[in-house]
């Protein structure tokens, strides 16, 4: 928008400039590392739980609605079980999300001091979405017997809508860190702030769509895995079959869509954040007819030992074998992200994505021929693994976008090292946070497993406990 209007403070993200700033700087390099690890840990944890918060309500409300319409008790039972798990997941999601808003200031006061007001709008909106989500989730979980079945299903709808809206708002703020818009700088202070322009920055759409679909995939594959595991152990209950089929369908249907959206997001990078794409693909020199590299290790400006697909990257990024790809060499050395971690994270995400696609196609083909999903052990084992692979792909995607933006916290405007708090001893905080998250992880998994394995209602025969 107005990038470049105030040359003194605006720096070209490609060529960069001196890092000497008047802003905050870490007490020591180790403190900066500690702050980054703490943020990565708490955000990487929250993002998985948040995906269930976004995707699970819709799947649960669907099951409840089907149960009400058909009078089928199995649907209702599934909905009640899922609602219980949702209660646990929403609670840990709410608190782990709160920590992030603390950490924005506690760890990154330099960024919030300057840019807090620019990105405040989506967070304010997110606050209201979270309010609506929390209120109606409280009603949904606790008022089964206070409301008619019809009204009860309806109270689930605001939960679904607000969950998706929350994800949208929060991710627009992250997109802004990649494509900062809607302000000018004057003597290091922001002026001429346009909150809506900041929120609807160019990266907002590809990033939010990619993230929201990812959330439904994580929730779908994750929930399905619980029942795939039960079927693998030999259950033939309709409860387990339906419990598998409903969420798995959600994940499987969205996977091809997600691959298309991912392609859109990558093309967006080629145009708007080429250094990130160069790191993703390990491209050093700017060139045409750039091959697509699979695997490989980046060393001294070269991706070694990789499988090459001629013209592949040029084709993918520009629909043209002759397409020009900007390389890492365009940016000064101190402005380049670490290549190997970005390259490998991206590759792993894509690999898992295509694995999930194949699994979905397998299921779809069998369903087309036999009107039932594959029951063999290989499929069920893979479907169980998909419950772990989907969140893993999510994490890899997150690492790609976050590490790919480094060394900037606000791309081209502020370095991560300038944003961090100068408070010493941050590894102490990191240690405390790590311990608390470890305990919370163990407890969450334990509690959810207990919920999943609790005996079914008396009229249902459960083989696990037979």
């Amino acid at each position: 928008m107005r990038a470049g209007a105030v040359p003194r403070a605006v720096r070209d993200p490609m060529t960069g400039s001196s890092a000497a700033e008047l802003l905050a700087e870490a007490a020591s390099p180790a403190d900066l590392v500690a702050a980054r690890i703490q943020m990565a840990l708490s955000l990487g944890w929250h993002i998985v739980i948040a995906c269930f918060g976004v995707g699970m309500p819709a799947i649960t409300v669907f099951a409840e609605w089907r149960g009400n319409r058909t009078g089928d008790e199995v649907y209702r039972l599934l909905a009640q079980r899922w609602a219980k798990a949702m209660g646990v997941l929403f609670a840990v999601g709410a608190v782990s999300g709160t920590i992030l808003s603390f950490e924005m200031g506690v760890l990154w006061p330099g960024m919030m001091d300057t840019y807090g007001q620019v990105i405040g709008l989506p967070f304010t909106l997110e606050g209201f979405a979270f309010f609506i989500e929390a209120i109606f989730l409280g009603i949904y979980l606790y008022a089964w017997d206070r409301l008619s079945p019809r009204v009860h299903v309806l109270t689930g709808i605001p939960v679904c809508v607000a969950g998706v809206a929350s994800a949208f708002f929060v991710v627009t703020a992250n997109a802004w860190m990649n494509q900062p818009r809607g302000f000018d700088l004057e003597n290091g202070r922001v002026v001429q702030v346009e909150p809506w322009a900041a929120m609807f920055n160019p990266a907002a759409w590809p990033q939010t769509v990619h993230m929201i679909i990812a959330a439904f995939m994580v929730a779908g594959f994750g929930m399905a895995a619980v029942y795939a595991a039960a079927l693998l152990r030999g259950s033939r209950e309709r409860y387990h079959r339906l419990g598998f089929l409903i969420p798995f369908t959600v994940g499987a249907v969205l996977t091809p869509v997600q691959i298309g959206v991912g392609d859109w997001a990558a093309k967006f990078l080629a145009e708007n954040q080429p250094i990130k794409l160069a790191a993703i693909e390990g491209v050093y020199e700017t060139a045409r007819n750039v091959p697509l590299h699979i695997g490989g290790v980046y060393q001294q400006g070269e991706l070694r030992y990789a499988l090459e697909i001629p013209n592949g990257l040029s084709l993918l990024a520009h629909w043209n074998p002759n397409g020009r790809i900007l390389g890492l060499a365009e940016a000064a050395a101190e402005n380049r992200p670490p290549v190997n971690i970005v390259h490998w994270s991206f590759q792993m995400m894509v690999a898992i994505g295509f694995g999930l696609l194949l699994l979905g196609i397998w299921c779809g083909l069998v369903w087309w021929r036999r009107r039932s999903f594959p029951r063999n052990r290989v499929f069920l084992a893979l479907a169980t693994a998909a419950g772990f692979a989907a969140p893993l792909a999510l994490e890899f995607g997150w690492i790609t976008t976050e590490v790919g933006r480094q060394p900037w916290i606000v791309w081209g405007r502020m370095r991560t090292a300038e944003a961090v708090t100068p408070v010493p001893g941050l590894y102490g905080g990191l240690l405390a946070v790590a311990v608390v998250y470890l305990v919370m992880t163990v407890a969450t998994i334990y509690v959810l497993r207990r919920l999943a394995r609790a005996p079914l209602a008396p009229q249902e025969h459960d083989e696990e406990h037979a």
Partner: protein
Amino acid sequence: MSLAELMIAVMWAGLTAYVLLGGADFGGGFWDLLAGGTRKGAEQRDLINHSIGPVWEANHVWLIFVIVLCWTGFPEVFAAVSSTMYIPLTLVALGIIARGAAFAFRKASTELGHRRVYGFAFALSSVLTPFFLGTVAGGIASGRTPAGIAAGDLVGSWINPTSALGGVLAVAVAAYLAAVFLCADARREGADALAETFRRKALGTAAVTGVVALGGIAVLHADAPRLYSGLVGKGLPLILVSVLGGVASLALLLRRRYLPSRVAAAVAVAALLWGWAVAQYPLVLLPDTTIEEAAAQPAVLRVGLVVTLVGAVLLLPSLWWMFSLFQREQPHTPGRGASASE
């Protein structure tokens, strides 16, 4: 009223809601901690669970709302406070995790041993979290978080007489509100003996809170003279309202008029908060950062206020429905805490 003043007033209203609603939820944890052995305390713990279970998450969002409005409307205040207060705010964050997660885990667990561990974590963090939040408030009020990133003392900013007062007062207020709120909840559930128990606790904590608040004036006189002069100056009418509210809630408790007593207790606490705000006006951070100086760009404030207004139109009826749903007698009560979802 300027845009910046309007913004900080909205923020303060959000903080008031958090202290009254979220505070009472923390107070529930306080009483859980003191409820006694597993069997002896079961009835009290059930009531506490039942009262805060459906609403604590919504009540908790007020805190997020206040934080977000702070960095939107007053970014340098947010940066200054959160960097100087690194230690207590990290502890608050961990306390928030422990409280919320443990409460949810306890609800979802069946084994007694696990429930006790989660219950203890829930109860202990319900006391520590408001305490540390109170120390932060004390540090701000006594001028120990000057503008600038980590410009204040990392330790002295929250370990000092006013912070200690803030911490103790926060815990006392939470316990007091919870006890008053729980009286009416117990009676609605038909548990009159339980209502009597919480009535005694409410009377006790009302007295303690009053003594701490009044004794605190001496602390402020010595440790935070500017706050003191503000409180006995332009903040005095609100302080008097707070005292009147407290006395009224005591009198109403004595006469077992629990619902009006809730209102009086809420007035007492809210007036105290607003008394602080008025006493410090027009400064947002001592010694000399004014609300206007620290405020974001007018465009940001305008959009933030409009969005808040529109959001409130959605939020307030939803909140009202939630509270009215859970604050009325259950239509067909199969026993407390045994709804179909459990």
